[in-house]
């Protein structure tokens, strides 16, 4: 059972304390919604959880073991979506996605494109897609990763209502499979039973459903 735990996490960026002494535990199917004003350290926290930045204090534990002990194994278990979409504009939608398809199952790829409404654009170069469609394609990469932990930095940026509903459905399916996720957001996403983490006061609380 995947369990992600942050224990006394602290982070310094450029000599400034971004956050400190931050702890939380996420079991299977759990979701952590990180909120906070701009510059409060949401992205830094997500990068720490994705293993991109080392925390200056504390540790991230996966299934009870510090992730530092076996970083490749932890990286295999996580899928990270940053601010940037990590797409190559001159490659087609299909080519962009196929490179990240670790399971090498083509059916998975078509399925991901379909569930995010991109099935019709498979052969189009990404430079012809709109910003929202590019975000969807970036999300499709998470979808095909088969990773139990999703770390999504503002996944809903630029998405229209339909895509946002598709995102909610995709996340619900991921949690139904026992996967867990951490996401930061300013925008409403329907996430029943999610925990909230406000980086203004570092308190973990139970999100009342549909606070948005």
């Amino acid at each position: 059972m995947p369990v992600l735990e942050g224990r006394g996490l602290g982070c310094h960026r450029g000599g400034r304390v971004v956050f400190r002494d931050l702890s939380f535990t996420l079991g299977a199917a759990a979701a952590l919604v990180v909120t906070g004003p701009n510059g409060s350290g949401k992205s830094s926290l997500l990068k720490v959880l994705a293993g991109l930045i080392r925390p200056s204090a504390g540790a991230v534990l996966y299934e009870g073991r510090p992730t530092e002990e076996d970083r490749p194994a932890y990286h295999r278990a996580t899928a990270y979506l940053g601010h940037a979409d990590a797409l190559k504009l001159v490659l087609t939608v299909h080519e962009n996605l196929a490179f990240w398809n670790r399971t090498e199952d083509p059916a998975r790829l078509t399925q991901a494109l379909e569930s995010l409404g991109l099935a019709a654009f498979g052969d189009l170069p990404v430079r012809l897609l709109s910003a929202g469609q590019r975000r969807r394609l970036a999300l499709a990469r998470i979808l095909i990763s088969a990773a139990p932990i999703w770390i999504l930095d503002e996944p809903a940026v630029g998405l229209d209502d339909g895509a946002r509903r598709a995102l909610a459905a995709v996340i619900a399916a991921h949690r139904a499979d026992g996967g867990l996720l951490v996401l930061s957001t300013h925008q409403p996403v329907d996430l029943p039973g999610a925990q909230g983490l406000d980086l203004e006061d570092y308190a973990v609380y139970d999100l009342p459903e549909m606070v948005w």
Partner: protein
Amino acid sequence: MRPFFAQVGRELKLAMRQVGDLAMVVLFFALVAALFPFAIGPEANLLQRLAPGVIWVSALLSVLLSLERLFLADYEDGTLELLVTGPLPLELVVLAKTVAHWLTAALPLVVAVPVVSILYNLSAEAVGWLMLGLALGTPSLSLVGAVGAALALGARRGGVLIPIIVLPLYVPALIFGVMASEAALAGLSAKPYLLFLGAIFLVMLFVAPLAGAAGLRHSVE
């Protein structure tokens, strides 16, 4: 090994989709090499004697031109963060990208040498030695360049920083590359110099992926 070749293949595909960038590097090489005869004058003996050095320096500058895009695009569009945490060890990612860089930005220069050397009235034998030296030396240029490109990531004036880091490190390859041609043309054995070029390549093959990966890791932090 499959992820490694997948990475090389992706880089080659990306390069082929932007083939104009590659053509520009070769064109730059030809133009720089063509400038020297204009500056030096039409003395055939002098041009023949200077040709190996001039063509080597031109190739070196051309390789430099293509180094910035080695990691910068991945850094800017977020791909680098995924490569750092990806299934392929970052050292091998650096190596894969360097292999693709050599194939697309350095190998075309070696192929262009016969055309460029017309201006220097070089014999077929001299052209052959020059191409052999470049073929053996340019992989080291790509490898050292990858380290420079990785270190310059995130710096404000990365494009200027890369030549400053890389050019001094190119000197050994330049010396032995030019010496190989000159020795062969003087009727001496080029072998010791070619062996030196090979040795530089082997050392760099080991060192550059390690140093490059360290630079990349630092840049995403």
